[in-house]
């Protein structure tokens, strides 16, 4: 099964189970959770089912194309089921079967792994799904997002597409994956990985210190803009600039441009934006008060 047919199979499976197929967010994000189809839709009472691929950038995981398992950018297949159906685990297992993974032939397990995103003020309870000892998915019951308690509870299924494809194709290097017939993952992505890694670790033609200064400055500008957008009641654009800040923070972090103390301060500022976005999205509660943020 090629990388692209894996995406097609999962899309088909979840579309047939009532999910709207969305498209990736056209911004730099670290995970599918940051897409408004997850971050905003899990808030509030409305039921919602959606699935999409999200290219996810983790600058600190960049390895210049040299490590067969670690990537600056990987692909997540993200499913949100709100509320979480009673048979959600079985649905997930069925989706694996649809991709050609037969549970009877393997050791598939749900091992405790709770998820938390301090920058999004979000956390959930769940598992990492282990496939013969390899983590292939994160399975989370969202409890809180943007600092708000959630009801109903959504299930978030995040498939690590590269990992699953490597297991199915039995290759040891991600770059050897067959993306499409006759086209490898390396053909499509290797050069991008090398160059993005060099950028993320600050190996660019700028005077020392300038790299960090430049990105800090961008962070400040986007942060200010996000605040203005929030004050103007524009939730979607405000979330986008909050996510841009989050990405800049990741770049600053990967390139060792911030110390640990400062790091905490940056996380808190992004979180503050995320909390503002979440509150603005749900609006004031019926009695006029905004919900208190819970730590």
């Amino acid at each position, binding site marked *: 099964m090629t990388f692209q047919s894996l995406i097609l199979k999962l899309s088909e499976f979840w579309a047939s189970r009532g999910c709207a197929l969305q498209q990736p967010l056209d911004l730099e994000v670290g995970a599918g959770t940051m897409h408004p189809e997850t971050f905003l839709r899990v808030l509030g009472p409305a039921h919602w089912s959606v699935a999409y691929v999200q290219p996810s950038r983790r600058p600190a995981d960049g390895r210049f194309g040299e490590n067969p398992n670690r990537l600056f950018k990987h692909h997540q297949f993200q499913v949100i089921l709100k509320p*979480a159906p009673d048979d959600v685990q079985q649905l997930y297992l069925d989706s694996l079967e649809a991709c050609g993974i037969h549970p009877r032939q393997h050791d598939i397990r749900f091992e405790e792994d709770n998820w938390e995103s301090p920058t999004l003020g979000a956390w959930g309870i769940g598992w990492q799904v282990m496939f013969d000892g390899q983590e292939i998915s994160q399975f989370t019951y969202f409890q809180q997002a943007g600092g708000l308690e959630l009801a109903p509870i959504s299930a978030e299924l995040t498939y690590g597409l590269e990992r699953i494809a490597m297991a199915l194709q039995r290759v040891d290097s991600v770059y050897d994956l067959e993306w499409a017939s006759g086209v490898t993952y390396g053909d499509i992505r290797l050069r991008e990985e090398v160059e993005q890694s060099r950028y993320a670790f600050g190996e660019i033609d700028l005077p020392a210190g300038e790299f960090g200064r430049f990105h800090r400055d961008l962070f400040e500008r986007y942060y200010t803009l996000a605040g203005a957008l929030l004050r103007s009641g524009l939730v979607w654009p405000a979330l986008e600039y909050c996510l841009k800040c989050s990405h800049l923070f990741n770049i600053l972090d990967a390139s060792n441009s911030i110390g640990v103390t400062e790091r905490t301060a940056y996380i808190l500022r992004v979180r503050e934006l995320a909390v503002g976005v979440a509150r603005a999205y749900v609006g004031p509660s019926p009695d006029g008060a905004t919900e208190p943020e819970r730590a």
Partner: protein
Amino acid sequence: MDRELLLEIGCEELPAGWLPGLTRQIGEAMVAALTGHRLAPASPAETFSTPRRLTVRIARVPERQTDLEELVTGPPVSAAFKPDGTPAPAAAGFAGRHGVEVGALERVRTSKGEYLAYRRRERGRTTVDVLPAVLGGALRAIVFPRPMRWDARLDDGKGELPFGRPIRWLLYLYGGRVVPFTIARSPGALSGQVQDVTSGAVTYGHRFLTTSGRAGRSIKVRSFDEYRARLLEHFVILERSGRHDKIARELDAKARRLQGRVSQSVRAESDLLQEVPDLVEYPSVVGGTFGVEFLDLPSEVLTTTLIHHQHYFPVESDTGRLKNAFLAVINTEPDNERTIARNAERVVTARLRDARFFWEADRRVRLSSRIERLDTLVFHRKLGTYAQKARRLEHLAGWIAREALGASGEAAGQAALAGRLAKTDLTTDMVRELTELQGTMGGIYAREEGLPEPVWKAIAYQYLPAGVEADAPPSRAQLGGAALTWASVALADKLDTIVGLFAAGEKPTGSRDPYGLRRAAQGVVKVLADASALGLGNDPIDLSRLVAEACAPFADRLPGGTEAWTGLQLEEFFWERQVHLLERRGYRHDEIRVVAGLPWARRHPLGALLRADATAKARHSQEFQDLAALFKRVKNITKDVEDRGVPLAALASVLKEPAEAGLLTGMIDRWPEIDRALAAGRLVEAMQRLAQFHGAVDRFFTDVLVMAEDRTLREARLALLTRLRRAILENFGDISEIAADARPV
């Protein structure tokens, strides 16, 4: 007639680490709820669990509640009636609340007078009617380390029902019949795919394995025996011990097939074999291998990668050398063993390849060049970076070696160097990836760089000891020639962390101790208490001096010296750890209270431990117990009297009566023998000699009136007793705490 109660809460996979606690809790909660509902079981609860179920079976639960009869007390008779004899409002109201006339009330006599009372009788209901409330109460009573909300609620007025993971089915039988029970779902979540959970007579087997039909179908059962048997048919081993034994058996067999055995150190030190039975319902074991080239990695790296990250068991040869093989416990039947093993091998190889990359990259930068990088790692917001901590540790470790442990210049220099390098491994890729190897990795890299044993072992074991037991690692053998440098660094690191975080206002409160300060203090106390066993000499090490020195760098935030010791309540904080250590080593509470009476006990954990030990040995003699009882009188009568330090000999001219002269002479002539025994460390002998004073003290109290009219005489007698009090308290502690043995031994 008693009947069988069977409850199974079917869950999505519960965390393995929770299962032992939850299994205990659900049994206790059911028994408590039954008893609370007047259905006390006639047989004990048997409890079981797998990742997907919590099960309670009670073989004999009565068929009907016991009848209730209780007397509810109302108003006093004196206030219950008006002067004309008609009921006062208090009485009428009380009777009304219970739906009877005042005339139907009884009168009861109490110590406070006569009261009206209502005799409430309630006939016991049949058990089936009560069992729903029993389960509701039990579900509410379970406490989870981290509960989750899952849109569920109970109809008991308390609303939402959080649980560890979503509950997907309930098997609830009494005498083979279903007890009706419903967990409702919140209106906001209810839909075609989100439904109430209602109890039934069915369970579910293994997710993927079955002998017939489709796996995961419901299985109808009527009794526990049938339940257990049907589950086994459907690949669920209900008993944890059954899963454990199957794993242990197959591990041995598969290890032999790989020409090795399961790593003995893993068996001894890690709790992997205790954890895996709670990760699976039907375990088996597959073996895998990895490239021999990875055996060049330090064994700690290999085992940590396998154990902590994969829950796999390392395999070693009969001589204890690691082999390039591992064993994985899986939750299925291994008829497809090679596929699973091959995938597991790929994961292990990828992880080891990462580890080897770190191992090679890390060694290109010497630890001493890493100190600069510690500048970017914040130790604590208010306390600066790890680079600052490294400077503090360099000084403090050197100081402890020299001043507290009497080290030579060379050894003190090594301790200081180890202190300076102790945290540098935090900047290595290996520790960033495998955080549980902090310290260990620094030690290994230091060894690779050719630093001497006293330096690298001090770094490697800096986070130890982790336990309070006398044999908790590192052992004297492990330490070799590094005992002194290790103790210096281990103490310096812990003291610096404790004192610094206290200064930053991060003192632990209640169960909140995010920085692990209690554990750190426990380590300090353990090192000092076992100082001689660890080869650090027999001289008492004064903890308050160490604390004072550790406080110096925080002078702007902290009161200095002894002021920090008492003012920050560090004295109390460390004493609690000492008490814990003494309790864990089996000393009784009264023995620990004896030691607490020593004015120096809090500063000298080793001395305190030795005194507790001597007390435990001496306490059984009749003389000692007599003296302990008499000592209480000594303390009482001298309660407000200070020892003014009058020479005992000067009292001889005043204390002439035989009983008082006898005690005085004893103090002058025989006490020096006690001092000699104490100085030589012969504590039990000292205690025995002390106990011999019981006769003299007894005679003194029998024959002599301490509070004599004559002031000179009175003061002399009090001075003698005060001296005795001080001598006992300072050398033996408050022996009056020793309660007499119930039976003479």
